[in-house]
Structures are given as structure tokens and as C-alpha cells.
């Protein structure tokens, strides 16, 4: 999320102290008027925001898994990352990326109602979160609900989404955006792996276009990761940048159509269309690059 400022703060220090004192004095007032909004200052705002004052959106891996299932692709466990490799990841970098991958796999197996496998991936997610020292990021009651609803596909989808949203918020609140970014990246890589594998197994226009339509998400991930100066992250960013060069060749022809809103239903129909022009060669190059990046992540312990 980018902030456009029209007013700049002056004398931030004095204002910070004043606001802090006022806010600590105002606790009782807050109880009286719960609608009152928090008073804050510029220094706070930049630290709450994600990366360099901007937030980025990355599509949910579950959304890709849903499309793959809809395309008639059967469950294939061999597509997934082995859930018993948790102990092979030794750095925060590899743990975070693999936590994202396991989260995507958890969504995938849940979608296909694979109860036993879902329990395995749930355990992997919990173990990796513990090893990263972020077990608090995965709210205990939500994790318990996931465990209790493991046979209910629809509930699982919703609960996994809630669990990852909670962890995203927790990590941002605790200035661990580096981990948050790597979890998002891992989840995205795995969802791309689902797509390219599904397309190879059973080519369909829907999956083909979904692979191509990840251009903006990839751009967001590169921006998020570019903030870090750590060697491993820089190397990963370089790989993703190479991938983005393949995406640069994909063409999108957008045609605006006036949306239609049904106020009673609180619903707007967005009728614009986008034509995607992506070649077989581009899909093949993306497939190879995703395979290369993912293999490096899931085999991190052997490198």
C-alpha cells in the first residue's frame, strides 16, 4: 500500500512525545468512545507499513489450486513437497520459503479432501513456525479449528486462509516482514508449480492464462524481496528477475467495459476483458524456471 502525502510533519520528536503522553492519558476516553480513531504520527506509519512504505498483494495459492481442480486435474501427491523434510531446513531463509510452500500444499490437499495428507502438512507448518520462533503467528485456536475441520474441505479452505492472514498481520506487527515476504514467495512459487505441472499433465486455456496472468504478482514479489541485502534473498530475487524477463514478452490487450452495479445485492459486475497472448515457448521457459527455483528451495539443505 502506497501512501500519497499532502501534508508533511514537522518537529516529529516533539509531536511524538506529545501524542504518546496524550494517548497514554486517553485510555479511559477510548473506553467511552470506541469509535475514536487512533492518533498517530508519521514515524509510526512508516514502521507499520510493509516494505519501504508500500504494501503489495500476492494472489492466494488456494485460488490457483481451485482453478486446477476445476480444470479436471486429479489429485497427485507426487506434485507436492514431501511433508517430512522439515528438519532438513537450517536457515531462516529456507525455513520461511518452505513454510510458504507447505501452506500452499496444505491448501491443495485440503481442496482434494486428503485428510491424512492434510494432517501431515499441518504438522509441517506448525513445526516450521516453531523452528522460526513464530509459532505465535499461527493463532492456536485457528490451528485447532483446522485440525477439527480437516475432513470438511470448505471449512479447511476458509480456515487456512484465515491462518495465513493472521500470520501475515503478526509478522508485520513484529517487524518480521522479511519472513512474511519469504512465506508469500514460497506460497507463490508452489502455486506456480501447481499450475505448470497441471498444464503439462492436461493442457487447458484456463491454466495457461493463469500462468501468464501472474506478471503483476511476480513484480510485487521482486519489489518486496529487493528490500533485503542478504545474499540468499538477493540470489532469489535475481532468479525471479530472470523469470520476469520471460514475462515481459507476454502481451495483454485490455478492453475497458463499463461495470454494472446492483446496489441491492451490494455487487458490481466487472465486465472488462483482457486478451492474453502467450506462446508455448514462453510457457515452457516459465515451467523450466519455476522448476529450477523450486528445486533450489526444497533442496536447500543439500546445497
Amino acid at each position, binding site marked *: 500500500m502506497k501512501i500519497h502525502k499532502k501534508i508533511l510533519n514537522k518537529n516529529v520528536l516533539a509531536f511524538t512525545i506529545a501524542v504518546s503522553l496524550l494517548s497514554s492519558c486517553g485510555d479511559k476516553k477510548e473506553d467511552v468512545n470506541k469509535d475514536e480513531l487512533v492518533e*498517530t504520527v508519521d514515524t509510526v506509519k512508516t514502521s507499520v507499513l510493509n516494505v519501504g512504505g508500500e504494501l*503489495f*498483494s500476492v494472489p*492466494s495459492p488456494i485460488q490457483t489450486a481451485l482453478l486446477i481442480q476445476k480444470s479436471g486435474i486429479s489429485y497427485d501427491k507426487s506434485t507436492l513437497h514431501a511433508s517430512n523434510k522439515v528438519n532438513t531446513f537450517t536457515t531462516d531463509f529456507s525455513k520461511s520459503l518452505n513454510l510458504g510452500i507447505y501452506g500452499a500444499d496444505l491448501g491443495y490437499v485440503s481442496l482434494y479432501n486428503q485428510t491424512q495428507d492434510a494432517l501431515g502438512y499441518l504438522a509441517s507448518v506448525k513445526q516450521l513456525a516453531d523452528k522460526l520462533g513464530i509459532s505465535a503467528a499461527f493463532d492456536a485456536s485457528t490451528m485447532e479449528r483446522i485440525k477439527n475441520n480437516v475432513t470438511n474441505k470448505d471449512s479447511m479452505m476458509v480456515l487456512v486462509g484465515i491462518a495465513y492472514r493472521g500470520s501475515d*498481520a503478526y509478522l508485520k506487527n513484529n517487524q518480521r516482514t522479511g519472513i512474511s515476504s519469504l512465506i508469500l514467495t514460497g506460497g507463490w512459487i508452489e502455486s506456480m508449480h501447481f499450475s505448470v505441472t497441471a498444464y503439462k499433465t492436461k493442457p487447458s486455456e484456463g491454466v495457461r492464462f493463469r500462468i501468464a496472468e501472474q506478471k503483476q504478482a511476480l513484480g510485487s514479489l521482486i519489489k518486496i524481496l529487493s528490500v533485503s541485502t542478504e545474499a540468499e534473498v538477493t540470489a532469489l530475487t535475481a532468479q525471479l528477475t530472470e523469470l520476469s524477463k520471460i514475462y515481459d514478452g507476454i502481451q495483454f490487450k485490455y478492453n475497458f467495459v463499463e461495470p454494472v452495479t446492483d446496489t441491492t445485492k451490494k455487487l458490481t459486475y*466487472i465486465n472488462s476483458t483482457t486478451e492474453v497472448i502467450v506462446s508455448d515457448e514462453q510457457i515452457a521457459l516459465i515451467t523450466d524456471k519455476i522448476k529450477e527455483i523450486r528445486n533450489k528451495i526444497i533442496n536447500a539443505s543439500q546445497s
Partner: protein
Amino acid sequence: MKKFIIALSFVSIASVFNKANAQCDTIANICAKHIISTFISDGQQYRALLLNSEETAEFQTTFFGETTYRIAACSGTSDGNLIFNIYDQDRHLLFTNRDKKNAPYWDFKVKSTLETIIEAQLDANRNPGSGCAVMLIGFKQK
């Protein structure tokens, strides 16, 4: 004295920061109620602290075709404090809740994939000061 002021400012900043985070968490929890269980969360929470109603928070996201999205937008502990606008890549306005009484959530049936820009700002008529803006996205297959 200088050291004392620096130390005090760090303590003050940390205090305000924690308080702001707590407020944002409260708002996010309230906002999450709008993403009802027929929608799956995209796994992220978009939040920004806005100093005044002239500031705009913005992020880009892809709306995939054949999908229904729900966007929830909240600030404060009651509905209707946040205005949000959705534009396409060419800055055509696709939706604003401004003329929908600042509705705290809205659904979007998306025909074909498109890149969007989502903007949020505090409503000057309801927010005299600053506030935490929280936006959440949920989705379901058509």
C-alpha cells in the same frame, strides 16, 4: 539531557507504535467479520495509518476472471469510516463506495482477469483526525 530526550523519544515511539498496532488489530478483527465464510481470505492484511483525510493509501492487485471477490474496508470500530475506490490499469473508475454510504464491504463478479489499483482514504465527514485503514480481500469461484 540529550540522552534522556533520545531515550524518551524511543520509548514514546515504541509506545505509540504498539498502541497503533493494537488499534489496527482491533479494526482488522472487526473488518474480518465482513469476509464471511463463503469467501476464502487471500491470506493477507492490507493496513496503513493515515494522518488525515487528504492522504490516500493505495495498492495494486490482480482480479482473476471467473471469480467473485469481496473487499472489506474499515477504519475505527464502526462501519462507514473509510472510502475506497477501485480503478483499472488505465485509471477508469470501476467502483467507489463513496456513493454507497461508504459501504464497509462490496462484492465484485469479475468476468476476465484484470489489473486493478485499490485506493483508500478516511472520510473527512466522519474522521476529523488520523486513523488506521484496514482492507481485506476474500474470493470464491463463480
